[in-house]
């Protein structure tokens, strides 16, 4: 039985700087793995290496036992790996509904069938369902650029789930989101995890969010894995406290 995601000895160097230094870990089906660490510890670089946005200097990435190292992000996405970004990444000039349709339209048919098929690629119902699941029904026809920051953050997350992904990597989903909306987002993520059997990897600075959402936590510092374990164990680990608070 292979892991949903396996990262083997991945390293990424930029000139003389080693952003990610020989990192290995696995994620199994249904897990919610949290990755925490101080700013500059290599979390986002690690994400970008896993997702093909960057090519790792060395090491290998496997999804369901299959090597995907260096695969283009669009091909990887069609294998069922999706992501959200640290900074907002929605399409402001498309409606909320079109943002969601866009997030799934390339997962079916061919270029040719998309050209001659239905304008909505038969995805309107799915999009409406996702919109109401995230509690945004009243916004379906609005331009995404007109939404509040928190609403755009929800839309960003919803887009990552449109194509029914097997593995979702979330880069700071809670950043800049108010408490009410944060609780809303966490509930949605938990439901998607249990009902759709989606596996998550979450980068987050908000400890409360990580500790209550994740089943396992991995701590990065200076590009290396510092600690790994259940949320409660990691929280009381003296090395982790030191890395966060400085020497």
């Amino acid at each position, binding site marked *: 039985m292979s892991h949903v995601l396996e990262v083997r000895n991945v390293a990424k160097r930029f000139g003389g700087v080693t952003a990610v230094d020989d990192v290995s870990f696995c994620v199994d089906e249904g897990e919610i793995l949290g990755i925490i660490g101080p700013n500059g510890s290599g979390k986002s670089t690690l994400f970008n290496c896993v997702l093909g946005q960057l090519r790792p200097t060395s090491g290998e990435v496997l999804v369901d036992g299959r090597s995907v190292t260096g695969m283009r992000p*669009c091909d990887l996405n069609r294998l069922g790996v999706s992501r959200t970004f640290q900074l907002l990444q929605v*399409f402001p000039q*498309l409606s909320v509904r079109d943002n969601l349709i*866009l997030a799934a339209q*390339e997962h079916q048919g061919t270029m040719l069938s998309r050209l001659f*098929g239905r304008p909505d690629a038969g995805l309107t119902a799915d999009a409406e369902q996702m919109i109401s699941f995230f509690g945004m029904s009243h916004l379906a026809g609005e331009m995404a650029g007109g939404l509040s920051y928190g609403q755009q953050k929800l839309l960003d997350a919803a887009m990552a789930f449109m194509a029914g992904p097997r593995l979702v990597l979330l880069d700071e989903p809670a950043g800049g989101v108010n408490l009410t909306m944060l609780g809303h987002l966490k509930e949605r993520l938990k439901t998607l995890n249990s009902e759709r059997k989606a596996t998550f990897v979450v980068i987050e600075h908000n400890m409360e969010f990580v500790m209550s959402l994740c089943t396992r936590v991995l701590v990065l510092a200076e590009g290396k894995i510092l600690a790994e374990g259940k949320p409660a164990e990691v929280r009381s680990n003296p090395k982790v406290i030191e890395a966060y608070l400085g020497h």
Partner: protein
Amino acid sequence: MKTLLKYAQVALVVLAIAALLAAPLVLKPYGIFVLSQWAVMAIAAVGLNLTLGYAGQISLAQASFVGIGAYTVALLQPFGVPFALAFVAAGLLSFAIGWVLGYPALRVQHHYLAFVTLAFTTLVFLVMRNEEWLTGGIYGISNIKRPIILGWSTVKPVPFYYFALGMLALVTAIVWWLLRSPWGRAFTALRENPIRALSLGIDTRRYTLFAFAFGSALGGLSGAMHAPLVQFIEPTSFGLSLSLTLLLMVIVGGSGYFLGPFVGALVAVIMPEWLRFADGLYLIAYALLVLLLMTFCPSGILGLFGRLANLIETRAASARRQSLSAKLDQKPVSS
């Protein structure tokens, strides 16, 4: 309110079409010629709007494709190739060359891409000017005949005008279909955020190449109509200045608006004719007009309408809100 604006838009388009169809009743042959020119240039502008306005890839090479299309038709004519066939050949050739020109766009963007496509315009111009054995060099090619289509002669100005309108309508329908399909959404995504698009499974590489190829193909089709319209072609017509004029049409009309290039082409082709009463000053007047428009409305003429529609809608919404909040106790709106 929104639907009312939509109806107003549809009504305007219907009126414009009726006016175009009725134009030969009132216009002299020169007016018909200018309107035909508008229809032909609008085809190229619609193509550039696809590449630039929707997919966000700047191109200063559109004139080259008009040239390639025009020369294709002019060079095939002596061999007795029927116009329909030459027309299709012009489109296909431009599609293929446009596809290849798309490759630099996979590496560079914005003003870098502008310079790459500028160099291409120069290259094509030099080929048209220097390869005399093929293109006739600076003397160009004259005596290009207007086609007879299924027994219907387009030799006279009015039939050719209707022929050009028909071709514009055909191209418009195809582009409308394309932009309404998932491709249109993918093109917009490519323009707005290529990195996010890539992470959503959108093959940005392929869509970029297609955006260039389709836009260029329309440039070629425009050229294929331009050759029989003016009946004489020479290299300088297809240089940088036409590329810039086509760019102007897209930007002035409203880049990324479906009707933008039609309005833009109207401004670029017909406005100079209207301003002729100003005699020697007409180019200056025209330049000033463009200057003012771009300063105060960078999103183009249709952008101006868009802003107006937004304003009306916002006013209506706040009026609604006011009348509602007067009736109800003010409850905080949950996000």
